[in-house]
């Protein structure tokens, strides 16, 4: 299939529609659509873009879409992929928002929401566990985890402030390493 704006849009629109229950199913979906059916990119490239999508801020599904879209057809492809990915989310939420006010007062809807709220708690736990496995690799990263946790949960620091602090810490750590290495060379 040709990598035109419309085809890219259509493919990502399909992926966006099938993307239920958070972004975790995106990798198998993209695998089947992009690698197996369309043969637009290969398995290794997809995994690389997915990993890169996680090392950039923002929604991972959207990040991956922009990476793949750009690779397929430059800026045009990126716009097609991103809009295809977000449009189903946008439309379904607008429809839900319209009926939300009327149904949210019904007792059985409240009960379902209450239950799903507990389910979301479980998904957050699983997400934290998954992120923990990938990110806590030594004592320092473990310390960073707890500092971020305490700043946010205990001191109610704005999340953006915590992230900015983390970025500075990352730069400072690398700077220290560089200084040390230069010291060794002398």
């Amino acid at each position, binding site marked *: 299939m040709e990598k035109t704006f419309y085809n890219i849009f259509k493919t990502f629109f399909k992926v966006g529609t*099938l*993307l239920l*229950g*958070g972004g*975790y199913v*995106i990798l198998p979906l993209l695998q089947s659509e992009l690698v197996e059916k369309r043969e637009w990119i290969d398995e290794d490239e997809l995994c690389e873009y997915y990993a890169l999508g*996680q090392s*950039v*801020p*923002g*929604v991972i*599904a*959207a*990040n991956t879409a*922009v*990476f793949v879209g750009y690779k397929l057809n430059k*800026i045009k492809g*990126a716009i097609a992929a*991103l809009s295809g*990915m*977000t449009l189903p*989310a*946008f439309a*379904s*939420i607008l429809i839900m*928002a319209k009926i*939300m006010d009327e149904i949210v007062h019904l*007792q059985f809807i*409240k*009960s*379902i929401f209450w*239950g*799903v*709220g*507990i*389910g*979301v*708690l*479980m*998904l*957050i736990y699983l997400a934290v566990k998954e*992120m923990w496995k990938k*990110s*806590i690799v030594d004592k320092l*990263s473990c310390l*960073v*985890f707890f500092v971020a*946790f305490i700043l946010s*949960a205990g001191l*109610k620091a704005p*999340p*953006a402030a915590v*992230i*900015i602090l*983390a970025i500075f810490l*990352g*730069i400072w*750590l*690398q700077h220290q390493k*560089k200084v040390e290495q230069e010291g060794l060379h002398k």
Partner: protein
Amino acid sequence: MIYLRLFLEFFHIGLFSFGGGYATLPFLYHIADAQKWYTTQQLTDMIAISSITPGPVGVNVATFAGYVTSGILGAVIATTSVVLPSFILIIIISKLLEQFKHNKYVQSIIYVLKPTGCGLLAAVGIDMFINSINLFGMILLVCLFWASLTQKRDPLFYLGFSAIAGLIAGFFNLT
């Protein structure tokens, strides 16, 4: 100017949330406190809805928050602003892909950002847990936890199971 504030808030979420999916939640809870556009109860409902509708949760909640705040135009602005930083950043990174992957500073920043994003999400989880749990909720959570130990399951399994459990609990007035 509500539209400008919507743009700024959601653009900064797109720029700073790190770790994907639920990583936007700490920011959305912070907005609920700071801007009063929606209550934390509404946000919890929104998260529940976005878990059962298509699309990434971060985008879903942005659309929802924008709509609740100022209608369709608000929804368009919030949704666009939350993905705009991704778009700009990745176009730049794609051009410099090799340098980006091998840059020591980038690697060092990512090394710190990963546990940070994880810590922020854990903080949201604890907050939600304290605010929403009761005895039956605890039992349900233990069941879900037990189910996760026996085998890896689809997120929809947990959501479907808890929706049904919620219905039953509501019937007996346990929620």
